């Protein structure tokens, strides 16, 4: 059990900067997910923690000790990879106890330890089999067992589920989360799959292009993204961004799009209007589940749109609609029926609107319930 602290860590590979001035504190006993697209620097981050790479600038602490100069074997970290690296000619038993044999532990203690671990991972019936005879999920458990039995201070996992099929992945997600809760150890889990990060992480760090974008709980990172990158990497389908203009000429300030106008007198909106009389380019961010779709023009906040594509998913329906020149995704009920080209109306959920600066992508405002005075169609 140990915490991890990275301070001002920078790492280059030739001309590319893999990690840029990264500061991160991972708490003891935390399930910490690092989420980012391929090439974001996720694996480099893990390699830095484990000691396979050395930072050019900055320091890495595990527990309270600076390990920046420490040899990987001395750091007491277990790493579980996408390809599990099990010994194919050894039994499950021999695979798991391998680290203990290296430590020259006595046979009685080994037996005691493996009984416990095998039970914990529900592989006690498989100990005499070889990896080739196991299912994908079982192999995954064996790899985890080999890590657990050493009782390392920290567990690092590099996309361990990405080779499994969808149903097994679902099952392993639950298994891993339960295991971590049970062990109460520090897990650092790297993934490009937002569902894995949201479902397992106590906290999520979003990484892009070697730079830390945001660190927070799954709920906050989903609800209060600090920039468009974070907003779009989470959620399926991801958040919609609708280009708008903020007009601050009059006292009644408004945000306009070709199809609708948001007018407000609320103070919290002040920061969207930087200079009097100047037009600001904004992106209105709204998640597909925060848009309602109607077949009739029921209320005065209904905005006219047109169905572009309908994607039924069984338990829900994704409806792509044309709103002026923009195509946005709306999450509708499973029984939604619509045809391409059909005229529909949408309403936006007031308390779930986000406003981003178009240029920098930084979030300027997360709207709270009452601060929008009115949304009206144009």
């Amino acid at each position: 059990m140990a915490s991890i602290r990275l301070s001002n860590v920078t790492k280059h590979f030739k001309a590319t900067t893999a990690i840029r001035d990264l500061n991160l504190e991972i708490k003891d006993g935390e399930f910490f997910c690092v989420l980012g697209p391929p090439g974001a620097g996720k694996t480099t981050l893990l390699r830095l923690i484990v000691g396979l790479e050395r930072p050019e600038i900055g320091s890495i602490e595990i527990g309270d000790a600076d390990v920046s100069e420490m040899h990987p074997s001395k750091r007491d970290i277990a790493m579980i990879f996408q390809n599990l690296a099990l010994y194919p000619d050894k039994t499950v038993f021999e695979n798991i106890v391998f680290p203990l044999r290296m430590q020259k532990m006595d046979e009685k203690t080994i037996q005691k330890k493996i009984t416990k671990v095998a039970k914990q991972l529900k592989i006690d019936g498989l100990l005499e089999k070889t990896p080739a005879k196991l299912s994908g999920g079982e192999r995954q458990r064996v790899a985890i067992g080999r890590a657990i039995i050493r009782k390392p201070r920290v567990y690092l996992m590099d996309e361990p589920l990405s080779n499994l099929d969808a149903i097994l992945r679902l099952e392993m997600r639950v298994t891993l989360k339960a295991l971590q809760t049970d062990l109460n150890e520090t897990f650092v889990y790297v993934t490009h799959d937002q569902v894995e990060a949201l479902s397992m992480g106590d906290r999520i760090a979003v990484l892009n292009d070697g730079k830390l974008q945001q660190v927070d709980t799954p709920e906050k990172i989903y609800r209060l993204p600090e920039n468009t990158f974070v907003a779009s990497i989470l959620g399926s389908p991801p958040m919609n961004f609708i280009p708008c203009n903020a007009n601050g000429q009059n006292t009644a300030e408004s945000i306009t799009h070709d199809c609708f106008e948001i007018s407000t007198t609320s103070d919290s909106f002040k920061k969207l209007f930087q200079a009097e009389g100047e037009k600001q380019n904004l992106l209105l961010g709204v998640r597909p589940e925060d848009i309602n779709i109607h077949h009739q023009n029921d209320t005065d906040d209904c905005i006219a749109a047109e169905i572009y594509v309908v994607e039924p998913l069984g338990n829900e329906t994704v409806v792509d609609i044309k709103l002026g020149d923009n195509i946005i995704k709306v999450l509708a009920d499973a029984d939604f029926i619509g045809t391409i080209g059909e005229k529909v109306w949408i309403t936006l959920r007031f308390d779930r609107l986000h406003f981003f600066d178009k240029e920098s992508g930084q979030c300027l405002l997360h709207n709270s319930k009452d601060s929008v005075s009115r949304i009206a169609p144009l």
Partner: protein
Amino acid sequence: MADITLDNLVKKFGRQTAVDHLNLSIKDKEFVAILGPSGCGKTTIMNMISGLLNPDSGQVRFDGKVMNKVPPGKRGVGFVFQNYAIFTYMSVYDNIAFGLKVNKIPPSTIDKEVKAVAELLQVDHLLEMNAGKLSVNDMQKVALGRSMVTKPQIFLLDEPLSNLDAALRSKMRAELKKIQQELGQTTIYVTHDQVEAMSLSGKIAVMNFAVLQQYDTPHNIYNHPVNMFVANFIGSPTINFVEATFQSGELILDDFQGFHFPLSSATANQIQTKLKSDKVVIGIRPEHVKVTNGKNGGNSDIKAEIVNYELLGARTVLYMHPSMNTENIIKSTMPSDFKAKNGNFASLTFEEQHLYVFDKESTELVWRTEATWHQSA
């Protein structure tokens, strides 16, 4: 015009049967997904349609014409693979234009077509770039564009979106569907991703172990799966299965220590007539398990402990352990504002109209409400 008929196709690799007596009829302009776990024979089917593989027996027919002896290049089939197979030393423009140049199309037409496709796929600003320098997402678009531009009558796509990131995948899904509806080529799409199959296609062929399980519309596959494999393969989170006994017009839930689930007499009669044995497995989709916090639900509720929950953004998935002596975990999808806490107790209910009843031994569907059945066109 291009409708495709697969007639009793068999393909073996050594002792392994990859495709076992497959019959499939795909109409002109239809979008069909072939869905199944890895190793189920999906790609082998594709390869037999394109002509890269010859079936051991059976026929591949396009518009009634037997194609078994026609070489791949003459079948009028366009391909897109998971690994893009683009020419990395050529420019994006030359990659897209390649198929047209080979067919000796006049340069002015080529130019028009390439630009139109590039615009559609939003790679028009990259036309002069070397294809090897593209991002993964753009490479996949170029691979699609190269095939689209030749306007094949039949379009075969083998997991074309699986290397893309989630946001682009969701965008490309809608674009592919739109493009196919506009161009109207017969399209066959191989995937292991049920979301892609459901959202894109007019019909889905679900495969398992070389055998076709079901061929129907996404709606019917989801609502009327022929067996437990199909029910489990479609839907995320997966369907809940509970073992039960059908007895005097009721379902006794064996997994829940004999909890009685009463049925309407009409439903009970329908089940009675179709049942081979009284041992059944009932299926309930997570979105149909209604959960209230606390132990105070009605008598007809099942009490359960929340053992885990996942905040998935738009929804929260609950994992519950019914407070009876059972290993069974019940999943429920709730709105994201549901307050969940591990160790808390909850009451769960579900309705008869949402039940799927399977025969335990054969795993085949024996009962499902007819209200959700759509007659396919």
